[in-house]
Structures are given as structure tokens and as C-alpha cells.
């Protein structure tokens, strides 16, 4: 009984974490969607670290428009899946990929100059922590408890349970 209770409170905590991260992604995406002047150009053009060539190549005139659009769609996708508790594993993976890119575009490595950062970081920054949190969410989906996944599981349960 205690185990179930603990499980339930862990599930609730994970739901809370899922909503918070979804909230973060969705708001970032929506702000970009409604700001026609937004572009990742400056962020990418000033990339540092081992993959700077990759990010700088994305600033190419032919590509940057697609990069901006895909980034915005991906942010909104991650946001919606996590908040709604549906395809959340896919959402968590997409989030990890996005954050991984943000992490490596401006990695907090001690030999690189840290520009436009609000805190002090040594290898670990908030992007990396959010990646770790998403990794947890990927392994423990909670949509069945709170989210569209709940309805799905209920329907399956209903179907499976013979009417008495």
C-alpha cells in the first residue's frame, strides 16, 4: 500500500515536471511564431566549440529560413506533447535533440569565452539539466495518469473488461 502511494506521488511529481518543461518549450515556440522578425541567425553565427562549423553553416541564406521554421515547429511540438501527455516519448526525444543542439552551439566549456550567459557554468548548464530531466520523462511516461494517454488507456481498459 505504501509502495503504491509512493508510486502515485512520484507519478504526480513526474507529471508536474512534464508540464513545466512542456510549458517552457511551448511558450518559446509561440513567442517565435508570432514574432515575424525572430531568427536564430545571431545565435548560430556566434556558435563556438567543436561543432561551430555545423551551426555556422546553418546560417546560409538558403537554409536559415528552414532552420527557423523547423526550430519553431519542434518547440511547439515538444510543448504540446508534454502538456497534453500524448506521444510524450517522441516529444521528450525531440526536446533532447533540440536542447542538445543548443548545448553544443554554445557549450559551457572552460576554454571557450562565455557570451550572453546569465550565470556561471562549468560543463553543466541549464540546457544539460533539462536534457537529463527529459531523459527521465522519456523513460517514465505519465500520460496514462494525466493526459490524453489516460483516455486511451481507459478505452483499452473498458474494451478489455467484460461487462458484468
Amino acid at each position: 500500500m505504501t509502495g503504491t502511494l509512493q508510486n502515485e506521488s512520484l507519478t504526480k511529481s513526474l507529471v508536474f515536471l512534464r508540464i513545466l518543461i512542456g510549458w517552457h518549450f511551448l511558450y518559446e515556440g509561440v513567442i517565435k511564431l508570432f514574432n515575424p522578425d525572430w531568427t536564430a541567425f545571431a545565435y548560430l553565427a556566434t556558435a563556438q566549440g567543436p561543432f561551430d562549423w555545423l551551426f555556422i553553416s546553418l546560417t546560409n541564406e538558403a537554409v536559415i529560413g528552414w532552420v527557423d521554421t523547423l526550430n519553431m515547429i519542434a518547440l511547439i511540438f515538444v510543448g504540446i506533447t508534454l502538456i497534453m501527455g500524448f506521444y510524450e516519448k517522441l516529444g521528450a526525444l525531440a526536446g533532447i535533440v533540440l536542447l542538445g543542439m543548443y548545448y553544443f552551439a554554445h557549450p559551457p566549456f572552460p576554454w571557450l569565452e562565455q557570451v550572453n550567459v546569465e550565470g556561471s557554468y562549468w560543463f553543466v548548464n541549464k540546457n544539460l539539466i533539462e536534457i537529463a530531466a527529459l531523459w527521465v520523462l522519456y523513460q517514465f511516461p505519465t500520460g496514462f495518469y494525466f493526459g490524453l494517454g489516460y483516455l486511451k488507456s481507459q478505452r483499452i481498459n473498458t474494451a478489455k473488461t467484460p461487462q458484468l
Partner: protein
Amino acid sequence: MKWTRRDVLKGLGGLPILGSIWWAGTANALVKSKDRSEILEQLKIQPSLTSALPEIGGAPIRIGIIGFGIRGEQLCRALGFATQDWLEEMKLEEELTGNTQLQEFLDQEKLNIQMSAVCDVFDVKAEHVIASFSTPEHTVKRFTTYQEMIHSGEVDAVIIATPDHWHAPMAIEALNNNVHVYVEKPMTHTIEETYQLQEAAENSEALLMVGHQHRQTLSFKTASDIVEKGVLGHVSMIQTFTNRNDDNGAWNYDIHEKANEQTIDWDLFLGSAPKIPFNKNHFFRWRKWWAYGSGLSGDLLTHDYDRLNCVLGMGIPSSITASGGIYTHNDGRNVPDVLQVNMEFPDFSTGSSQPKGKEKGMTFTYSATLGNGFNRPTILMGHDASMELGNNLTVWPDGGSTKYAAMLEEEKMKPNVPIYHYNPGANMPDAVSSATSQYFADKGLMWTYIDGVRVNSTFLHLREWLSGIRNGGTMSCGIKEGFEEAISAHMTGLAYKLGRRIDWDHKQQQIVPIEGINFDEVLLSST
């Protein structure tokens, strides 16, 4: 299937969260964009576009370069002629630092000119021009004196990039013989020369262009529009600065290893300057002595003064005071390396949002040191807003503004939040090679941006001059602008050297005489 309340809560509970975030994001973005358009609508600023120039048609214009030092070489590059050494150096820098200057040079539009002749008192430099710029069809011809070059009939136009004391004699000789002139700043070395050159330019059929290339900077045209539309209100104070802290910035240029009495025509270099024995230091670092140069007032203040004269058109100040000294480079120079200048314009106004007659007059300050490199930006301070002027423009509303009082009250504007930012090169990561280059670049003196592409403003300035030679037209920095610049620089030099206020008589168009003082003697004196 029938949904229970529990089903709805647990299954669709995310929906209101999603809806709220979406609403908040949309509202936030829209409010910001609405506020911005409201501000922009009130400001009515038109970001400037470049004006198209008529083509430089016909036979190539034959150019003679007089003086192939640091600036002479830069001017030739702007014309499309780079030395082999420079090309190799830039190729290396491109690989090492990503410096894009080589590519920009190669992409530069080709001008319809021929590099015909060179005149330089240092053999190495003259031979360098001949070796680098001669083509199979034409070998660059060397002339010993500028008179020979001007009278040869082999040049249509000359570029004068010599020490200051040679500017006017050469420019006057060329104009008197209807040879077009591009002369570096300051236009003249003395007051008398300034009037002589003015007369020569007005009577000549040839064109005179003074080398203030920043007149081509696109942001300055937008800045003009901002001031004209009254965005800043009455500007009562302008602050301009020079901050440099390196050898190059303090005019301690390299001394060429091949420089000696055999390779340099020393007497020709001296010209009207006091006769002294051969001195390499004076030859390569002439900007440090009043005999050949004019120090901070003629060399760097002129940039800042003309930048503002280009934006505001305020003309010659009614009076100037100046002070300073040699405080950071006691190396034998006699021009100051720290200088404070106040220029008064008591009748000037950029317009007012307050009751008529309340506001009039403006002070322009120039504060310079060659012993500190902290960047102090150029600021125009108006009753309604302040503007930082450079290649980028930023406008902040003033907390006490009359014009924006309502918007400030409603917090649609905040005093510490810019209401306008113009950054034509926002999409350009720049690689600037040295501290001095950065100093010039920040001020908009090196390049401007056209359609987001970085363009050398010296190239644009020279192109305007060349197009004018073929097609006529008024120069953006002709004799009027050059006269105002030169007089202001000389008044500053006098104020510093005499330690007293120097006044300009607008009616008589002359510096108010001071009994017993010969101004030109003072300007040329070593102290």
C-alpha cells in the same frame, strides 16, 4: 464510450494549460509588436537607402597618386588596386582569423580608371606602386614633383595623401590646372591656405572632394532623418570622443628598414616646413609634429566634427575653447595626446517640442586621449531623446521629454529602453583586425552596409568623386564642407596653443583677430 468527470479532468487537464500558454504567448508578442508600431508611427523614421550614381563612362579616368603611405595605399585599394604584399597578408589572415577583407576587395565593383602616375619622395614606395599597379598596356609613370605630374597632361585627377602641410599647395596647383582633386583631411594646414584653396576650388572647372569618407555611411543619413523629424527634440549637447591606446593609434608607425637619405628626398618632404637634418622619425611619424601635421585637432577631431556636420549641418562654431597636453606619450612629439574641446553654437537648434524661444543653442564637445582605449560612444542629447551615433543608431527617450510625456506616462516608453535601433549589419559577424580598425569601424568611418553587405565607405566616396568627374554633380564633401572642417580644426589648434577662446565672425567669414597675434604663425609653431 461515456466520459466521466474524472476522465475529462485527467485526460484533458492539459488543454487549459496549453490554451493559457498559447494565449499568453500570442498576447505578449502582439502587444510588443503593437507598442513598437505605435512608437515607430510616432517617430516616422525612414531608414535610408543608397542613392544610385550615374555610371563612370567614357575613357578610363587617369589617376595620379601623390603619397603612397598608409592612407595612400588604403585609397588605392578602395580604387581596386592592391599590392601583392597586402593580398598575401590578407589571404593568410582569412585562413587564420576568418578576416573577410580580401573577399570584399575582390567583390568590389571595378571602377573605370587607370592608375597612371605616382609621386612619392620615398623611392621604395614609388617603386612599389609601379611594380604593383602597372599593367601590360600601361606602366605607371613616376614623377619627382607634383608640379610635373599635374602639368604632364597624363593625369585627369590626383589623389593627395601626403602630410598635411602639402595638402593645399598640391590641391591648389591641380585645381588651377583643371585637374580633379581628392584630398585627405584636414584639407589645409593653415588659415591662409584655407581661403586660397576655397578660391581655387570655386574658380576651377575641376572637382574637389575632401576625404571624409564617412559621409557615405548609410546610418548617418538615417540619423539626419531622425534629427530632422524632431525625434530627439532640441539637442543642446553633443559628446564625441577619441580613445586609443596603442602605438598605431598614437601615430608611432613602423620605420621602414630601407629608409635613408639616399632613398628619401628629404628636402622635398620638408617643403615649407622648418629645415632640419634628415630624421626618419619625423618622416614616418609626421602626425606628431605641428610642422607637418595637426595632431588630434586636425587628424581626429575633424572626423567627429564632420560626422556631425554631415548629420546636422551646423557649420562653423561661434567660438572654441580647448585644453590638454602631452600626458601619455612623452616621446619628443609636440602635438597634444590628450585634448578637450568645446565648440559653441549659440544660435543653432534642431527644433523644439517646448514653447517657442525656450530652447536655442548647442555645445559640441570633443574629448580625446591616446592613453586609454575605453570606448566612449558619440551621443546626441536632446530634450526628448538621446541618440548614439555610429554604424548603428540607438535612440532612447528622455524621462523628462515633453514630446513623449504621454507615452512615458502609460509606460509604452521607458527611459532606459531604446525606442529605435538601426543596425544595417545585424546579420554580419565582423572580423576586425586591430584596435585602431575597431575604433574607426565603431564610428562608421571604415565601412557602411548596403542591403546587409559590408561596403568600404572610402570606395563609395571615391566612386562619387569619379562619377562627378564624368557626369557633374555636387560633391558630398566639397569645398564648403572642407572649408568648415578646416577652419574648425584650425580654431581648435589655436585655442589649444594660445590657451584662450577663439571666435568666428559669421558675417565677415573670418576668425576674430587678436591684436599682436599672427594665427598662422601660431599654428605652425612647435609649441
